[in-house]
């Protein structure tokens, strides 16, 4: 027994606080299929996480109106992980203990990596609409992970091929925002350029500090390196700051970036400086009838255009629920088999999943900002 008086004082304090905060465990309602949704629903990356909830809500509403799946209604459990790994583990544990059958999420690669260990142990399939880190599927450590978006190396490959073959630029500066998404993509791009057989050279490889007050120093360095084009890995705030300061310094350097920048907010924030910027993004599906219907539903339900990764989340929700329908049960292996065998119609086209978890039929296309809007570059 712990000796001495002051230890006793502590133990009384512990008891007071734990009783006050311990709330009773949640009982399981087994009569519904639980679709967990995990991602950043608050904080500065909320704009990437919230559209996924809306996408799932639309899909679930439609399915429940048609009588749900296997005769059960589908219920949504949305949990916020603020795109932080340590919060993601708590969120994942909560979804597992609330009995989620499948999980749509997480949004950021770091949070996804932290949570996947927990889903793997509890044999729960997780499908992310936006985590593009290649190691999630290629490392083979996460058999329960699927995604409805291509991985960074595919994006980097497309960006480098476009720069060297279509734009025929010789000197490329590769920048990133020191984040795991941005830096991962930039490293792939650097690798592809270096072994592109001398078609182009990496004249600069550096990270910028997100949220810095001023980028003129790095812009000067780009100018000094004589780069014809800049490949930037990261999100739109940093990209627009860099392109603005480049244009203000009358620099003509081309900017090529990733799907973190292929986002309408980029055009609105960068304004006329965004003109001519290239960015990779999911294949253009605006002609796909399902995509048009999904976007219409969103406008009708929420009165605004859908946000980032909306269509990917919509497709992921459909794929998950369709797999449960086809598998006839919420059993892990049955769903996994269904995902790998059954084609499913989604706004991203007819997709199926390869054995590592990447979606077949989902690829990237190159877009350019022309007259204030992204247009696909054939």
């Amino acid at each position, binding site marked *: 027994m*712990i000796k*001495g*008086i*002051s*230890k*006793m*004082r*502590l*133990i*009384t*304090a*512990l*008891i*007071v*606080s*734990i*009783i006050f*905060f*311990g*709330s*009773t*465990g*949640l009982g399981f309602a087994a009569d519904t299929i639980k679709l967990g949704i995990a991602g950043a*629903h*608050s904080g500065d990356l909320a704009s990437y996480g919230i559209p996924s909830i809306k996408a799932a809500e639309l899909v679930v509403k439609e399915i429940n109106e048609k009588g749900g799946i296997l005769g059960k209604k589908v219920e949504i459990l949305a949990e*916020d992980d603020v795109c*932080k*790994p*340590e919060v993601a*583990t*708590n969120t994942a*544990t*909560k979804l*597992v*203990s*609330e009995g989620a059958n499948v999980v749509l999420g997480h949004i950021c*690669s*770091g949070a996804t*990596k*932290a949570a996947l*260990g*927990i889903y793997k*142990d*509890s044999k729960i399939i997780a499908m992310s609409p936006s985590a593009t*880190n290649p*190691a999630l599927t290629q490392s083979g*450590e996460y058999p329960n992970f699927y995604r409805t978006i291509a991985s960074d190396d595919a994006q980097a490959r497309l960006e480098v091929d476009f720069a060297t073959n279509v734009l025929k630029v010789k000197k490329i500066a590769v920048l990133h925002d*020191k*984040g*795991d998404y941005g*830096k*991962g993509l930039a490293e792939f791009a650097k690798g592809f350029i270096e072994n592109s057989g001398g078609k182009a050279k990496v004249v600069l490889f550096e*990270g910028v500090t997100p949220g810095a007050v001023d980028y003129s120093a790095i812009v000067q360095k780009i100018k000094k390196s004589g780069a014809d084009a800049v490949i930037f890995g990261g999100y739109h705030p940093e990209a627009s700051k860099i392109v603005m300061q480049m244009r203000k310094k009358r620099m003509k350097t081309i900017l090529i970036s990733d799907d973190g920048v292929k986002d309408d*907010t980029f055009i*609105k924030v960068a304004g006329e400086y965004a003109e001519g910027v290239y960015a990779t993004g999911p294949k253009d599906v605006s002609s796909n009838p399902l995509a048009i219907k999904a976007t219409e539903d969103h406008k009708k339900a929420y009165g605004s255009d859908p946000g980032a990764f909306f269509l990917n989340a919509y497709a992921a929700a459909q794929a998950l629920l369709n797999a449960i329908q086809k598998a006839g049960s919420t059993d892990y292996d049955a769903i996994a088999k269904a995902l790998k065998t059954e084609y499913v119609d989604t706004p991203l086209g007819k997709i199926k999943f390869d054995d590592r978890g990447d979606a077949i039929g989902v690829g990237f296309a190159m877009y350019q900002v022309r007259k204030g809007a992204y247009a696909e570059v054939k």
Partner: protein
Amino acid sequence: MNLFPELRKSFIASLWFMFLTFPIMVIRVNTIENIVEWRWMNLVFVGIGSFFLSWLWRYLLSRKEMGVNKKTDDQDRTSLVSRLMKNKQLIIPAAALLAIFTIIFPHIFSTYQTSIMITALIYVMLGLGLNIVVGLAGLLDLGYVAFYAVGAYAYGLLNYHFGLGFWTALPVGAALGALFGILLGFPVLRLRGDYLAIVTLGFGEIIRLILENWNEFSFGPSGIANIPRPSFFGMDLSIQWATVYIYYIVIGICCITIVIVGRLQDSRIGRAWIALREDEIACQAMGIDKARTKLNAFALGATWAGMAGVVFAAKTTFINPASFTIWESIIILCIVVLGGMGSVVGVVSGALVLILLPEYLRAFSEYRLLIFGAILIFMMVFRPGGIVSDVRRVYRFESSAMDDKPQEYS
């Protein structure tokens, strides 16, 4: 409290707040589609809200002023909580009840609750560590997260390269923490107060930035994944049982920490720290080696942070630099100051409140941090000494000097 002046003051306050929050609360501008949205309802809410809030605020402030005068005349102003702990009959049953509760906790609550409680207990360890540096020795350390990161990455990297298990990594993490504590302690020996704070803040950021940029060493922003959880005699456990197992490990470490910190506080070293906090020049003039005492404080504080880092890495199985930002240092500092500087019981309750509260405020998720900020201000204005203000040890001497034995009673 005559009514009319209060009414007038509240009315002025409400007008003031309506003017103050007018642009940000009422007008929401969508510069993208260039439409301006006028939300007049917000103005009404602000007006009414501030009317009553200002009244409450003034009432509490006046009570605080009266309270202060009342306090100074009766010397023994120990707070309710401390008096509660003083009388004997209450302590023993409360302690027994608590021990039982902590043991059965993981079985009566869901894994989610246990995993939050583990996070809270990790912060108890961090709080107790920082308490030595800030609470006892009075050295304002804003870069404490650096040692936390050292512990976490020690386990992550050593496991990745040499396959070190949890139980071997724990002491290594603690030792590395202590080493970094001394390394970062040396340069700041001569600094005082806010300069010490800003240099330690600098160290915290330097270590995080090095972890973020030095890919070859620390895998940079992508971090280190699947760090093994402590296995139960070689047997890998399912998530539920692993969480329960980690829970008991953390409870064990916390109890050891509490015992050791408690003993340190009432020892010769502890008194030297408090003397250092009170008056550096007098403490040196009384024969205390200032440099060694400061380094002791830094090293010991950092040891607990190192151990907490190892436990954190084991619990989340994934670490990256983004979870060791300056906000962690600030949260731990708030725990120490809000809990009650220098008092073990205060720091423990501070950690439980500050970590569990935001989790249980999850219901109104967006307002979580707003309320948290308001609570910080409210607590500091009305209880600057923290929840449990540090009650010094008291010795009773009954008989005459020569033969009595001081009976410890605190």
